[in-house]
C-alpha cells in the first residue's frame, strides 16, 4: 500500500558536520529547497566535532551527514561512534574528499558515502540525503514497532540503503501497529514518526478551518475514500454539478447546497466520533454498529453509514441529520 497518505511534506531533522564554509553554504541552500529534497528539512550544522557530539547527545535527528576530515584531522570514526551509541537508528552518510575513506566509513557504520568533488556534486549529495532520510525513518519506525511488541519487520543493517519493497512492508506493518495502539500513549513516538514520514494522517484544525466548505467536503471525502460519483448517488444531484461544486464551490441550487452541507455535517460528526483521528474515518464510514456500538440505534446501525447513504440517498441524509442532531 506504499503511498503518501497525507499532502503534507515529510518533516525530517538532519545534522551536518562540515568545516568548509563554502560547502556548508551550498549544502544548506540546497537542502532548504523543499522541491529539491521533497521534504521539509530542519538543519543543524556543526563545524567542529565537539559541538557535533553535543548535538548527537542532546537532540533527535533522522539523518547525519559527516565530513570525514575536519581541519585535516580524521573525525569520521569518532562522529560515527557517537551516533551509533546515542542514535543507532538514524541514517549516517559520509561526504569526503578521499575515496579511500569509504571502506573505513562502512566499517564504522556509515550507510552510504559520497566523494566530495571540487564543485560540490550537489545532485548526487541530495539524492544520497533523500535515500538516507527514508532509511533513517524506516529504522526508527521498525524500532518503535518492536518496542510495542510486534516483530517480523525486516532488519535494516548499516552500510546499505533501503529498497522500495522493504519500505512498503515497513509502511504497511507499522501503520497496522499504530492503528491497533492508537489510543495508547506508548504509540505516540511511532505515530509522530509515521506522521513526519507522511505515512499517517493527523487532523490540523488550523488549516481545516481556513478552507471553504467545498474544500472541506473534498478533504472529508478523501478520508473515506469516496468521490463525486458517490456524492451524486447520495445527494441525488448530477455528478457534473458535484464535480463543479467540489472544484470551485459553485452550486446550481439551494436545495443541492443544503444536501451538500448536510453531508459535510454528517462527515464532520463522524470525524468527531473518531476523536479527530482521520485514519479511523474509513472504518467509521464503512462499519455497522456491530463493530461500533456508539452508533447503535442509529438509522444506519445495521449496515453502516456508507451503505445506508448510498442505498437511500437524500432521504438517508435527512434521517442521519435528525439522528445526529438528537444524539450528539
Amino acid at each position, binding site marked *: 500500500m506504499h503511498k503518501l497518505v497525507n499532502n503534507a511534506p515529510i518533516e525530517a531533522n538532519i545534522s551536518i558536520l562540515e568545516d568548509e564554509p563554502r560547502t556548508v553554504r551550498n549544502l544548506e541552500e540546497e537542502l532548504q529547497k523543499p522541491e529539491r529534497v521533497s521534504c521539509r528539512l530542519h538543519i543543524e550544522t556543526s563545524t567542529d566535532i565537539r559541538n557535533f557530539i553535543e548535538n548527537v547527545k542532546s537532540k533527535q535527528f533522522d539523518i547525519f551527514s559527516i565530513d570525514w576530515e575536519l581541519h585535516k584531522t580524521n573525525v569520521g570514526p569518532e562522529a560515527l561512534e557517537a551516533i551509533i551509541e546515542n542514535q543507532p537508528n538514524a541514517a549516517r552518510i559520509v561526504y569526503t574528499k578521499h575515496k579511500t575513506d569509504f571502506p573505513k566509513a562502512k566499517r564504522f557504520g556509515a550507510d552510504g558515502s559520497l566523494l566530495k568533488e571540487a564543485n560540490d556534486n550537489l545532485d548526487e549529495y541530495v539524492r544520497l540525503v533523500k535515500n538516507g532520510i527514508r532509511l533513517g525513518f524506516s529504522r526508527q519506525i521498525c524500532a518503535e514497532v518492536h518496542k510495542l511488541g510486534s516483530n517480523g519487520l525486516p532488519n535494516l543493517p548499516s552500510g546499505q540503503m533501503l529498497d522500495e519493497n522493504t519500505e512498503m512492508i515497513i509502511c504497511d506493518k507499522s501503520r497496522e501497529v499504530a492503528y491497533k495502539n492508537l489510543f495508547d500513549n506508548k504509540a505516540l513516538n511511532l505515530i509522530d514518526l509515521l506522521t513526519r514520514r507522511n505515512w499517517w494522517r493527523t487532523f490540523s*484544525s488550523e488549516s481545516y*478551518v481556513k478552507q471553504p466548505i467545498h474544500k*472541506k467536503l473534498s478533504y472529508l471525502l478523501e478520508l473515506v475514500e469516496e468521490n463525486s460519483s458517490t456524492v451524486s448517488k447520495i445527494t441525488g444531484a448530477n455528478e457534473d454539478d458535484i464535480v463543479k461544486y467540489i472544484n470551485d464551490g459553485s452550486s446550481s441550487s439551494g436545495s443541492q447546497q443544503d444536501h451538500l452541507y448536510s453531508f459535510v455535517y454528517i462527515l464532520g460528526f463522524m470525524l468527531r*466520533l473518531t476523536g479527530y483521528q482521520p485514519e479511523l474515518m474509513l472504518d467509521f464510514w464503512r462499519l455497522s454498529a456491530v463493530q461500533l*456500538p*456508539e452508533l*447503535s*440505534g442509529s438509522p444506519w446501525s445495521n449496515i453502516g453509514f456508507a451503505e445506508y447513504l448510498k442505498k437511500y440517498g437524500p432521504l438517508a441524509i435527512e434521517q442521519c441529520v435528525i439522528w445526529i*442532531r*438528537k444524539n450528539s
Partner: protein
Amino acid sequence: MYDATKYRFDTNKMSHEAVIEDGAILYRLASIHFCDQSNILNGKAPLIAKTTGRFNAIHQPITYCANNILICIAEVLYHMYRQVLDSIQEGKSSGLIFNNMRWKKTLAIFKINRVDSLVYMDSEGIRLDYDSRLAGTTIVHPDPYYEPFRNFHEAARVDKEGLLYPSARHSKDICIALFGDKTDILQSDLFELLPVELKLVPEWQDPAQEPCDCDPFKEKLHATMGYYKFEDTNRFQSFRDNGVLYPNDIRPNGMVDFVRRCYLDYPRDAVLPRH
C-alpha cells in the same frame, strides 16, 4: 483594535435601547465545519440544534456571539456539561457520551457594521415594555430554557434586530443575540479564525496540570469549570499583540468557570492557573 465603547447600552440599567457601533469586534465559537464568512452570521446554527435556544424556538434563525472571548468559552463549556448529563439520563451509548467531553471549535473574530435597534435586557425598561418577570436574577436564569424568555424574544423579534444581555455563565461583559440572517453586517477588514479545544475535566483536576481525561460514569465531572486551549499559540499571541482579543491578556489555555462569579482581579482571576 477592540474598543469597549462600541457596545452602547444604558449602564444605569434604565432604558433598554441599545446599539452596537460600526466597527465593533464580536466573538463567536463556531463549528469548525461551518465557520466561513457566509455562515458565521447567517443564523442557521439552530437548524442543526436539537432543542430550542435561550432566545430562539427550534430552527428559528439566530446567531449567538459576545464581546468577550471568555463568555463564548464559558457558554459552550456549560452546554457540553449539560449535554453529558442529559445523555447519561437518556441512556445514550457511552461512545457518544465520551464524545461530548471534548470539542474542537473555532473562535471567529470579526467586525460588524452598526446595528441599531437592539434590546438591552438587564434594564428597568424591559420590565415595563416587555415582561415584569425579566429582571435581576431571572435574566441570568441558569436553565438553558426559561419560559418567560420565549415570549420576550418573540415580542422583540417584531421590530428589533437582536438582544444584548448578561451571560448566565460568565459575570463580565455582554452576550449578543442577532435575529435572522445578518451576513450583510459583516465587515471585510477583520475576519479571523482561531481553533480552540474545549474539554470537560474531573472535579479533582489541578488547574496547574494538563487536563486529565475523565470517565463520567466513574468520576464526577467538574460542575463549574472546564478547560480550553487555543491550538496555535503563535497566532493567538499575534492577535493579542494586535489588540483584537478581549480580554487581551488571557492565557492561551487554562480552566475557566462556567458559572457566574465575582472576580476581584479580572481577567487574572477568571482563568486558572493565575498568571
